């Protein structure tokens, strides 16, 4: 009985320490973002980076992820892929979806880490399952091609669709293509045109598709336009 009470007391103490630590790191991250925001009027890279590093050192996944992005070359830093992989691995170990995706890409390209396509696909897949739309796109492509993961055009197509519905413009272009050519989905020129309209609207035009879809009937074109106009991107968590 006494032992249990002691354990409980210890547990409470441990919780409050980590809560306090967390708050300080959170504040550091928040301030770092202000110093690193060129539009904030308080831009100061050195200060921002230093605060960010402190928050990352105390274990905040979001700060570790941001340190990873700095090491990848954000703010015109010379890229240091080894350092980037190190920070991203730390954030990724805490389940940070953005970090899982970026680290996966490093494994895919063999930068800062030994090239490992299987590990890359696993990391990018984890991030995709968490709703990171860039990861959904990359994972869709990996599954579609069978890189680091079992090839499956149908499943790959569904991942591309998930990313496209989140408003990812590159994914919208890919989805337009798979519907146009019937890869992993049943050929559907109207759906192809609808996604092509959305991708074009987002700045990703595709002359080959434009030519191909020009032969649709006026009714089909109107339906594609109607679907595109009705499109609302699914919220990204």
């Amino acid at each position, binding site marked *: 009985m006494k032992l249990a009470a002691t354990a409980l007391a210890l547990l409470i103490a441990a919780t409050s320490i980590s809560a306090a630590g967390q708050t300080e790191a959170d504040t550091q991250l928040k301030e770092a973002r202000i110093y690193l925001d060129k539009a904030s009027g308080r831009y100061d890279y050195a200060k921002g980076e230093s605060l960010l590093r402190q928050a990352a050192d105390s274990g905040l996944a979001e700060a570790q992820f941001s340190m990873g992005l700095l090491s990848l070359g954000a703010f015109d830093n010379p890229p240091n892929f080894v350092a980037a992989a190190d920070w991203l691995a730390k954030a990724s170990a805490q389940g940070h979806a953005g970090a899982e995706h970026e680290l996966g890409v490093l494994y895919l390209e063999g930068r800062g880490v030994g090239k490992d396509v299987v590990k890359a696909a696993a990391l990018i897949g984890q991030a995709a*399952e968490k709703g990171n739309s860039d990861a959904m796109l990359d994972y869709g492509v990996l599954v579609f091609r069978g890189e680091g993961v079992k090839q499956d055009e149908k499943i790959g197509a569904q*991942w591309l669709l*998930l990313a496209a519905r989140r408003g990812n413009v590159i994914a919208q272009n890919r989805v337009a293509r798979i519907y146009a050519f019937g890869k992993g989905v049943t050929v559907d020129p109207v759906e192809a045109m609808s996604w092509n309209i959305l991708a074009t609207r987002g700045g990703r035009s595709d002359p080959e598709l434009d030519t191909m879809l020009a032969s649709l009937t006026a009714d089909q074109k109107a339906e594609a336009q109607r679907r595109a106009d009705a499109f609302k991107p699914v919220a990204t968590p």
Partner: protein
Amino acid sequence: MPAARLLDCLKAACGAGDVASLLVPVAVAGEITPAAQQLGVAVIVAGEPRDAARCGADGIQLDAGSEDLAAARQALGKERILGVFAGSSRHLAMEAAEAGADYIAFDQTGPALGGEPIVAWWQALTEVPCVAFTPAGPDELDTLLPQRPDFIRPPDAMWQSAEDARRMVAALSQRLGS
């Protein structure tokens, strides 16, 4: 839990609502299967294809990823049900459906990916039925039912007694409109 109490709870549940199936561990499958089937409940064993065959159960449920689904599908044949628990993984669910799963069980409380909760997404994607496998009480149905799961799983508290089972299934059934 003793098989007798399990059966009492099951009988009470069947009297209170539309009970489709019962998932049981291998250890009690033999004892419970004939009686459950007499109540019109499909018995699914959390085990291997041979476990279902041995006790005459209606099917099995496996975890996606950890098992060879295609082999299980083949071993079960067409008469028996293959259910696959995919957690909150869309990828594993799609793979399981391609491997011939008859239903997919989801942890519907995983990442919702913004406006696309996993059950709603699945229902728009495919005809393969799905179970919202994380236990849901009447209060949780508000968010769950609009996603249109084919089956839901009552909270485990229903197995405490026949009365608990009756009350829980009746409360859920009322919300389901059955």
